């Protein structure tokens, strides 16, 4: 049993913390998210230079061969600094799908450019009627002599506006709710028939609604095996969850610390409000929430080497449940304890809360994952 870091991991953590602490003030972040793509390409280049875009890829693919621990360390620091980069969309979703679902020169080319920071990706899987279910897919891919023709509508493709390439899920077989029959396709952002409506999310990042009007793809653009796209996508999402929750933990940690500091300087009735016991206990609850979340992040990281085990799946569901529930409470309490200042746009608090809310509803919220957990734990 070992919860300490290797020297290399320690270095990664330190350098990520340094970037956040020294060259990424809140004002810069606000400027970044107000840009057209919602992030600063310079910062993305810096991520590439630091080797952070390579972390989750296998060494034979030019990656760092990093495991869950490295990802956790990086993403927790990104959370602490509220760093606005499309790491999840481009690296963890698009990149990992490319790695798992393509091969040969195509994979080499895409991953090389991606790791060098020269390729942005997006995965368009969500449909309006699906809510958090992955399988509920109406978009159709009909066979053509040379490949497929895609038609349908995807609602929220993260990083869609900046993406050079998208991976789109569509049904090649099966009924609307079936796991079987969903396939993934690599589509160029400029492909004829592809129409993107770009919009902002509450945390400043950009997403796109994607309309597919008879978009033609070649059979070589199939990502993974035909009809087996849902499982592939689910695996990649599961792989991203510990990192995603580590980022949420970083946000929660910042919110807790900033609230503690604020209450020490904020005076009411002639004393710092940190002296009120009711508020002290609320902050203890916030701290406890962070510790619980951290424990489950560690737990999922420790079982990540058995990605298909029941035990790991249980850990992931529990992690999403606790991160979701506790994150919500930490966010609400952080605003409440900042009083009127908490609801201003000026302070960073509200922005941390909003990003936390986005992370917690990504890939299913706490209620959703709790029901999944029940299915695993309480089968009759």
């Amino acid at each position, binding site marked *: 049993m070992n919860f300490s870091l290797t020297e290399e991991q320690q270095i990664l953590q330190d350098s990520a913390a340094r970037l956040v602490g020294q060259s990424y003030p809140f004002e810069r972040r606000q400027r970044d998210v107000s840009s057209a793509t919602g992030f600063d390409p310079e910062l993305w280049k810096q991520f590439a230079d630091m080797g952070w875009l390579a972390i989750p890829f296998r060494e034979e693919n030019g990656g760092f061969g990093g495991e869950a621990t490295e990802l956790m360390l990086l993403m927790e620091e990104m959370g602490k600094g509220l760093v606005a980069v499309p790491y999840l969309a481009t690296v963890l979703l698009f990149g990992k799908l490319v790695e798992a679902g393509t091969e040969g020169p195509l994979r080499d080319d895409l991953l090389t450019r991606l790791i060098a920071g020269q390729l942005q990706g997006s995965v368009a899987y969500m449909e309006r009627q699906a809510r958090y279910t992955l399988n509920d897919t109406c978009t159709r891919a009909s066979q053509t002599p040379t490949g497929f023709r895609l038609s349908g509508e995807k609602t*929220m493709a993260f990083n869609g506006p900046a993406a050079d390439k998208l991976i789109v899920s569509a049904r090649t077989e099966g009924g609307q709710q079936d796991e079987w029959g969903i396939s993934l396709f690599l589509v160029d952002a400029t492909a004829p028939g592809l129409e993107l409506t770009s919009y902002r999310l*509450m945390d400043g990042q950009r997403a796109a609604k994607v309309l597919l009007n008879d978009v033609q793809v070649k059979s070589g653009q199939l990502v993974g095996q035909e009809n087996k796209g849902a499982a592939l996508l689910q695996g990649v999402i599961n792989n991203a969850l510990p990192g995603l929750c580590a980022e949420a933990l970083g946000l929660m940690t910042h919110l807790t610390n900033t609230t503690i500091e604020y209450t020490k300087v904020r005076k009411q009735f002639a004393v710092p409000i940190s002296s009120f016991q009711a508020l002290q206990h609320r902050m203890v609850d916030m701290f406890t929430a962070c510790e619980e979340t951290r424990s489950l992040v560690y737990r999922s990281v420790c079982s990540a080497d058995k990605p298909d085990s029941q035990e790991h799946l249980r850990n992931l569901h529990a992690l999403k449940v606790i991160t979701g529930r506790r994150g919500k409470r930490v966010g609400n309490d952080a605003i409440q304890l900042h009083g009127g200042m908490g609801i201003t746009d*000026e302070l960073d608090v509200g922005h941390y809360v909003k990003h936390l809310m986005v992370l917690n509803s990504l890939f299913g919220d706490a209620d959703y994952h709790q029901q999944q957990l029940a299915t695993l734990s309480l089968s009759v």
Partner: protein
Amino acid sequence: MDITFSSDDLKFRDEVRLFFANAAPEASQQLINNPGTYKQGVIQWQKKLFAQGWVAPFWPREHGGAGWSATQSYIYECERVIAQAPDVVPFGLKMVGPVIYTYGNSEQKARFLPGILNGSDWWCQGYSEPGAGSDLAALKTRADRDGDDYVVNGSKIWTTYAQYADWIFCLVRTDNSGKPQQGITFLLIDMKTPGITVSPIPSINGVDSLNEVHFENVRVPRSNRIGEEGQGWTYAKSLLAHERTAIARVADSKSRLDRLRKFASCELQGGRPMIQDEEFRARFTTIEAELMALEYMELRVLAAMASNRSPGAESSLLKIRGTEIQQALHELTIELAGLYGCMIADNDTSSADIGHSFGDQARKDFMYGRAATIFGGSNEIQKNIIAKRVLGL
């Protein structure tokens, strides 16, 4: 013990229904929903209520009140929810109006009450100050006597819709020598007076409704002072209970609960409407049961007020539970919207473009709704009040 409606009550209910059927509240509500036409919608609706004589149900008849019984108020609110009609904006009608008719002189009543009732004057509230928050009595804005005027210097904060206001009612400090609650004076200030500047405070829901109001050597005639100098705290305090009662917003929450039920019938997951999702049902009915309790807590307070008993610390209770329920509703609504609760509809893209009907509004409501437990005296302060005044702790 009953809430049976008398035949007069039932007649009144028909009258209310008829009014709502004719008054086209949805048109005003649509204007109100859009920040650009918000003020217009509010005034439009208020003028209809004024014409009907219903704009200030709780005011005494001699000042233009409707003289309704508690039951009639309850009926009106129930019907209002069904008709999805707007509530009035409280600053004039529920806050400063009662202060003026209770503590103002006859000249002040004649001058200010008509504009409050017919909606021609928009009021805002100048209580909170930067750094003071729920500790109202710590206010520092100074009013110094100079001839027949006060000269006001200082700042007020969290002033809702100050950008629209014709008048502001303010607590200002006229004496520093005693306890913080002493030496506070209640002034009515014309927002057009030189020296007043309003700076908007961008808030986390992306809508600008809050402001900071700065006073630099603002001259206010002594005739705009309510009651005695130094007694402003007493006047304001007597009104806070009313404000808190209003903050409970039971009728609004009932209406939200109805809408939430409808949203959940249409929102699908795995092909099944979310209204069948067990976790949703549990959260919905928890709120529903609590709101049913809150509604009767409010009725009990209304009945007490109708018997001329003032709502005391019970109003703190209403404020706490009312705002908690509002937030639970906001939370469940935004979570029902799933990831669509995170999207922003703006000038470039409407909700319809993005493809979700209530996600954007759910987000705005959720974010701004965080203020409910902070403003009007934070819920923590309300608990302190109950602990001290009701439980004797």
